[in-house]
């Protein structure tokens, strides 16, 4: 915490590192972020972030703890004040297309002992389509039920949410996002602490959303399966280290830049995995 914001600091990283590569994007990008910086008190937590995401993409956001992954999602949705920069959804400033955005917060961000049922939580996904104080109607209930069913949770619709396992709670959150019927989804660690069955269910959901032409941005912590899960990857550590198709930017060099020296072993393992996979494809 010795950051002295009065002395301009030239990060060593910028020297010798090529500027971010731009990958061409066809059509209106569902999400564009320009020159975004966020400061918490006097400390910058996101610095000069600039990127655009193509439609119908699964994109993983990776980086070490405290790299600003969750902060990035929150900043994009306007939940945090920006020190500078701009966010565009479908080519326009954020609020214009709010209803086309769906959000899955971290599971721990709410109190699961809250007196409400699984169906009720999913129904909250429909609130955005209804006016203030207006009750959700029968059609909304139907959509919510189907979303629960889609996540394999139909039998638990009336269960109080504290009686669900961690994986089931995560699936309730995903069902709520489905009920939002959005085109761009932001998910904060949907794979964290879930069982194998839920992990599979989440993955299938992501792929289905993609085939329907939707874009999903997923904060992810498990580097090992990034190449299998995502099309694109966004590598973050205060700054944007790299963004682009996984097979082009998910490299040992970028991982080293993102995680510093801390993950050397893991980096090598990932690199080996990737090479093997490429060989298999050939």
């Amino acid at each position, binding site marked *: 915490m010795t950051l002295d914001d009065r002395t301009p600091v030239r990060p060593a990283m910028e020297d010798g590192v090529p500027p971010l590569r731009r990958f061409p994007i066809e059509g209106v990008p569902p999400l564009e972020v320009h020159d975004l910086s966020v400061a918490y008190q006097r400390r910058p937590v996101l610095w000069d972030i600039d990127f655009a995401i193509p439609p119908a993409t699964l994109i993983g956001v990776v980086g070490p703890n405290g790299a600003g992954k969750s902060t990035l999602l929150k900043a994009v949705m306007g939940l945090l004040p920006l020190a500078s920069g701009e966010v565009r959804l479908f080519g326009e400033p954020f609020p214009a297309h709010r209803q086309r955005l769906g959000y899955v917060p971290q599971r721990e961000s709410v109190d699961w002992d809250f*007196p409400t049922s699984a169906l009720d939580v999913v129904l909250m996904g429909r609130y955005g389509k209804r006016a203030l104080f207006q009750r959700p109607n029968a059609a909304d209930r139907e959509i919510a039920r189907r979303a629960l069913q889609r996540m394999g949770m139909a039998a638990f619709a009336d269960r109080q949410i504290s009686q669900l396992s961690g994986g089931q709670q995560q699936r309730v959150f995903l069902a709520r996002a489905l009920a939002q019927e959005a085109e761009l989804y932001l998910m904060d660690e949907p794979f964290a602490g879930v069982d194998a069955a839920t992990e599979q269910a989440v993955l299938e959901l992501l792929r289905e959303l993609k085939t329907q032409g939707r874009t999903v941005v997923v904060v992810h912590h498990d580097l090992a399966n990034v190449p299998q899960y995502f099309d694109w990857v966004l590598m973050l550590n205060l700054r944007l280290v790299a963004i682009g198709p996984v097979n082009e930017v998910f490299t040992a060099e970028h991982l080293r830049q993102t995680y510093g020296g801390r993950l050397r072993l893991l980096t090598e393992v990932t690199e080996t995995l990737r090479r093997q996979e490429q060989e298999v494809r050939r």
Partner: protein
Amino acid sequence: MNASFDWGALLGDANVRSVLLGSMLLGAGAGVLGCFTFLRKRALLGDALAHATLPGVCLAFLVTGSKHPFVLLVGATITGWLGVAAVNVITKRSRIKDDAALALTLSVFFGFGIVLLTRIQKTGAAAQAGLDKFLFGQAASLVPADVLLLGGVTVVLLACVVLAFKEFKLLAFDPQFAATIGRPVGALDFLLNTLTVLSVTVGLQAVGVVLMAAMLVTPAAAARYWTDRLPVMLVLAGTIGALAGAIGAVVSMTAPRMPTGPWTVVAATALFAVSLVAAPRRGVVARTLRRWRTRRRVAEENVLKTLYHLGESDGVWDAPRKASDVSGRRRAKTAGVASVLPRLANAGWVERTGEAWRLTRAGLDRARRVVRLHRLWEVYLTERLHLAADHVHDDAEEIEHILTPELEAQLEAALARPRFDPHRQQIPYDAPVPASAAEPTVVP
């Protein structure tokens, strides 16, 4: 209270009825709004807010010179709201955490209130006499006109809660999500806080500044024990608040010099205590009973499992075993095992033959299931979580009693029905035929 007290005559009195009705309405309003402060983990905000109303009451009197309840209500609402705002600003804009912000706000606002109250006292005791009932409450001083006003405000409050129920629920459960779907979270928070402040201010006359906080916390906490549904919780908390208010009012009328607030709070706490102890499922008794039953079941299953293990080692599944055989194998106390066995016999899992016991058909099936779950779980831990084989036993000891049939099926499918556990012991799926009928199962 003496036995010849004439309740009929008392209830026939319009004044009495209005005091009773008024106190109940106030209790109900605070109870309902308290549910939201409770669920938002802001139970103590009510305390800060209630204390912060005192300077408002005094200022309203100083400015207007009137003691009309409406005037005082407006004053109390303004400073009560400022108290909430102070807590919010301090926690958002400085390193001070909410606990210190709450304590500071409540004591400083209250101190300011005391400064004003003692000023008023000095200018003329007669004028002040009406104000000090706001400290600890005096329900008996409610006149029908007051009840009409305060009751009216309460009805409006409750109507607002019904109207905005869905938004308040979302705000309390997941405010960030509410913000992402474009809900005006700030405005809703403002509305909910204002309603809460109002519910406190209308209760002041009956319960008092100092203890009004309890009317926000205690009924909500009590109601939470009875239900998992928010609408039910709101109704219950309102009812508990109303009951407590009624009890306070009765005390106030029978002993006119008693402050009402403390009695109302004690009544609410008594209802809370009943809920804490006796509520089904979440209550302490229900939970203790459940835990006790689980412990009993685990002990039973462990004995059954050990009988199975003994059969496994010598191949005689229905051989009679002594309690000491079982305890020796499990390294448990013989007395403990000896107390479990008769229970198992009563339930038909084992049969008694002299000093020894042997598994019945049903007992064997149940024991086999426990062993199967234990070994399946060990396989799962070693194969899926890559734990060392000598580290998985203790975990499986617990899981074997917990896994539901659905999970068992999932586990079996996921592992493709493995034949052996990591210790090379057979996982029993099919019923082994009793020893008398066929060869014993060979343990590799």
